[in-house]
């Protein structure tokens, strides 16, 4: 409540966040390190089918793959601390720069999806709740059910067929212009927007039954004020919790969606890297995604506390 306690509280939340970041990223990368080492010999792949045993051994020594696993792991951790994930054996580019170069394209479609969820999903959810018995509200709810049930590769193919092949309105593959982001975004966003519509609708229908809404009406507040100013913030926490979890899910969905539209974000890059056993790229991608996921959940915590004073108090301990 008082300003004096705000600073230590923020510091403490920051420290908790940092620990979470380190534990998550380290855990994920460690798991990945051992999985990759167990899944085959990268040296043989790099050299190719025509290479001799000597070539393979040479590559192995160059990459340090002949050293004991624990030594390799130690070196790996040291490299991670310096954000050095090595050089892509295919392009010769540092892996982390290659991933960061592609990241904006992925953030573009994931960010646009989250923006649609808020700018389209929330108002539609409000409409569906405000006129629950009206035909328009029923149509919105029904459309949301369908969109939510559809796997995104099916939807992606459908959109591709209609808008790119039949109508020719939008490009079907590549990532050269913002227009190229439209179909991947729609494919990603369908589920998220639909879910937000349903969560907002359900949350509002529950909230408007509450006594404090009647109080607003007793004060002379109109239905719109009661809905938007009072019911909506109270319906917000489950929506926020969903969006935080969904962000991680969206990032992983880009693997499929970017592949489908040959959209050059980190999802497609990751799939290519896996097929080419490009460990540095795979590791750098996983690192970046893990950091993003932890960051999103930290942002979610901050927003949640901003909306609900009771959470703020709990967080302060």
């Amino acid at each position, binding site marked *: 409540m008082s300003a004096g306690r705000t600073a230590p509280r923020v510091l403490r939340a920051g420290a908790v966040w940092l620990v979470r970041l380190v534990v998550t990223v380290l855990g994920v990368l460690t798991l990945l390190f051992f999985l990759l080492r167990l899944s085959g010999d990268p040296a043989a792949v790099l050299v190719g089918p025509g290479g001799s045993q000597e070539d393979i051994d040479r590559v192995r020594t160059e990459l340090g793959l002949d050293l004991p696993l624990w030594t390799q792991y130690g070196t790996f951790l040291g490299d991670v601390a310096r954000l050095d994930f090595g050089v892509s054996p295919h392009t010769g580019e540092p892996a982390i720069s290659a991933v960061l170069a592609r990241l904006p394209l992925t953030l573009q479609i994931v960010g646009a999806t989250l923006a649609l969820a808020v700018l389209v999903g929330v108002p539609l959810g409000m409409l569906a709740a405000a006129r629950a018995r009206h035909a328009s509200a029923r149509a919105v709810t029904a459309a949301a059910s369908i969109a939510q049930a559809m796997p995104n590769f099916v939807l992606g193919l459908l959109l591709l067929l209609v808008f790119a092949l039949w109508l020719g309105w939008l490009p079907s593959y590549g990532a050269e212009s913002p227009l190229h982001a439209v179909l991947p975004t729609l494919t990603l966003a369908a589920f998220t927007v639909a879910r937000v519509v349903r969560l907002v609708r359900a949350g509002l229908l529950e909230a408007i039954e509450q006594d404090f809404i009647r109080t607003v009406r007793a004060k002379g507040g109109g239905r719109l004020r009661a809905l938007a100013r009072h019911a909506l913030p109270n319906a917000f926490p489950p929506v926020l919790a969903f969006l935080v979890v969904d962000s991680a899910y969206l990032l992983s969905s880009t693997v499929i969606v970017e592949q489908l539209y040959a959209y050059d974000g980190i999802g497609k890059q990751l799939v290519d890297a896996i097929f080419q056993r490009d460990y540095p790229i795979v590791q750098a991608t996983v690192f970046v995604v893990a950091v993003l996921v932890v960051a999103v959940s930290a942002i979610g915590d901050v927003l949640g506390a901003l909306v609900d004073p*009771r959470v703020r108090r709990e967080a302060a301990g």
Partner: protein
Amino acid sequence: MLEVKDLVVTAGGVRIVDGVSFEVRPGEVLGMVGESGSGKTMTMLAVAGLLPGPARITGGTAALYGTELTEARLERIRGRRIGFVFQDPATSLNPLMRVGAQIAEVLRIHGLGRTAARRRAVELLEQVGIGPERARVYPHELSGGMRQRIVIAMAIALRPALLIADEPTTALDVTVQEQIMRVLRAAQRETGAATVLVSHDLGLVSEAAHRIAVMYSGRLVETGTADEVLGAPRHPYSAALMRSRPRIGAGRGPLPVIPGHPPAPKSRPPGCAFHPRCPVALARCAQEVPPLAGGVACWAVQDG
């Protein structure tokens, strides 16, 4: 001056309020009593246009100073000409909004500027006995009694002509009840509002009310001054209700209770709804509904 005439409220095809008429004069406190489910809350929610979803007004009128309280008019004057204090202060405030802002909101809705509203909200807090520094706290940081003071502050903010308090102390600790009643009565006297005080608690009503209305199964069965109804109730139900009231120094014997249960509105008996429980019921009581005449709705009183 509130005048309610033949008010009928229907929910799911059942008349949960069945032809209620009463008046409250300026500065007067009307105590509305009756067992649980007798329709006290629904009557007053109907007057304020705040009925819950399934319930609708299907007959009668209510007028404030001669102007009929239509839905459209209520939308404009609720909060300004009519203030409402609800039963449960734990749930009647928005948990996500500072209490000062919730008081200021009623002023903002009715046209005050931001700073003026904020300043007046602080005054109102003081009027209900809360320090101005509490304007910035959230409801969960306040006790039940404090929250009810906030609700009272909102209800009287614009000096309403009609103040409705529905069981304002029922959800509170006994020790706090008296304080809240003091705050409420002071506010009532200060604003001069015509006031309806709904309560189970006859002790509380006898202290605060000038006149009393007794409800049974959605109908008004007796009205009169507090002295008349409490001291010499004429309707057999009112009489039974008064006898069942605990009195200081009245001996230790078990309290007399009215045998049987009040009927749910959908299984309300024909004729006088009280007749299955009435010790003095006549033959016609089961056939014809007694009209409210001379302040009593009872065949035995009217014929006798």
